[in-house]
């Protein structure tokens, strides 16, 4: 069975695409054949992987090309359905779909049925639209990256409300939710205060954070993922804990957690 993970927050600039690309490539490197679908009209997934933006999602959902023709191999084991400004048209098409709104919101369930991938990841756009709903309906896990400021935390509330609403109507299969603090600045008082509030509000859902790290921006400029550009960087390895040798946070430990949540065993760690 294919595991489907949505990476979403209705607030923009919280690290959704970096998280999606890093985890997708991490999973692929661990041997899981992974498909990353870009639902954002900015089309940055392709950019991050040194591929050209293209109307992949439009071809898949509007022109009804088969997935095998639309998915591009970006790295070994890692395939992407790229997006570009035509993704906006996809939203309009689905919203006005004569097949009816229920069919439209279940579009990914249909498209991904029997997809030859172990994991599918949705990089959602920072908006609550039909693609967003369709991704939440098709996914069994939701990861919510959030910056540590008041507005981003509000975005977490919004998306959790949306999932709760879908679940109350039995429309969403999401049974695993995690909140991933990003751009974490250990020495900033405001970050610490917001982190404490986040844990107070969302308790066990909050995963250890991703340190703020300029390498995440640099990696994009070189068209490389963080695993290629700076495996040793804080945003990958996390923080040294004052209590022991185990590091806290970073994408490496997040990858281990995602794999464990999806019932996959990781061969190496670190």
């Amino acid at each position: 069975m294919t595991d489907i993970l949505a990476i979403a927050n209705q607030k923009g600039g919280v690290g959704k695409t970096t998280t999606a690309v890093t985890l997708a490539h991490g999973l692929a490197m661990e041997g899981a054949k992974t498909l990353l679908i870009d639902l954002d009209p900015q089309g940055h997934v392709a950019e991050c992987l040194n591929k050209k933006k293209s109307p992949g999602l439009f071809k898949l959902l509007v022109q009804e090309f088969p997935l095998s023709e639309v998915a591009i191999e970006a790295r070994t084991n890692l395939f992407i359905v790229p997006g570009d400004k035509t993704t906006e048209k996809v939203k309009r098409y689905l919203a006005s779909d004569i097949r009816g709104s229920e069919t439209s919101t279940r579009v990914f369930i249909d498209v991904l049925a029997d997809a030859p991938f172990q994991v599918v990841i949705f990089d959602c756009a920072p908006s609550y639209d039909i693609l967003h709903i369709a991704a939440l309906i098709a996914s069994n896990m939701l990861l919510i990256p959030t910056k540590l400021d008041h507005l981003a935390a509000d975005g977490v509330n919004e998306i959790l409300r949306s999932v709760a609403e879908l679940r109350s109507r039995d429309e969403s299969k999401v049974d695993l939710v995690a909140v991933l603090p990003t751009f974490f600045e250990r020495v900033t008082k405001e970050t610490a205060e917001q982190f404490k509030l986040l844990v107070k509000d969302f308790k066990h859902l909050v995963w250890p954070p991703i340190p703020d790290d300029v390498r995440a921006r640099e990696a994009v400029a070189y068209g490389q993922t963080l695993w290629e550009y700076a495996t040793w960087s804080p945003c990958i390895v996390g923080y040294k804990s004052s209590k022991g040798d185990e590091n806290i946070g970073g994408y490496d430990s997040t990858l281990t957690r995602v794999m464990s949540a999806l019932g996959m065993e990781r061969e190496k760690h670190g």
Partner: protein
Amino acid sequence: MAKQPSRGERRRPIDPSTADLLDDIELRDKRRTMTKRERAEKDRAKERLKRRVNWDLPVDLKEKVKTVAKKEGIPESSLAAWLIVKGFTSLGATPDEWHEALDAYKETSGSPRFEWILDVDKLMDEES
């Protein structure tokens, strides 16, 4: 009758790594509000902690260290450190030399953490 204290909100577990990080933040917060003097004292305590050991010694040996230290007017820890340096020097420097010196006193350990323990009583009998 005394009022039953409120149980408050039922606690839900938070992620252990997240909890560790929260503890770190808490420590940092505490440190931020300390005076210079309190911070210096905290640093000294931290340094002292690095040098602190907690070992089990045979009671006779412990008493011996206590008696000699008292007689010489020195702290027991100073005497213990002096004796350890002496021991290291007299036994030699290479692992082989150590192995040879310790081998005759090794006994199988009952603890899963260690393979062997040393029969210190045997050594004390021989040396007395």
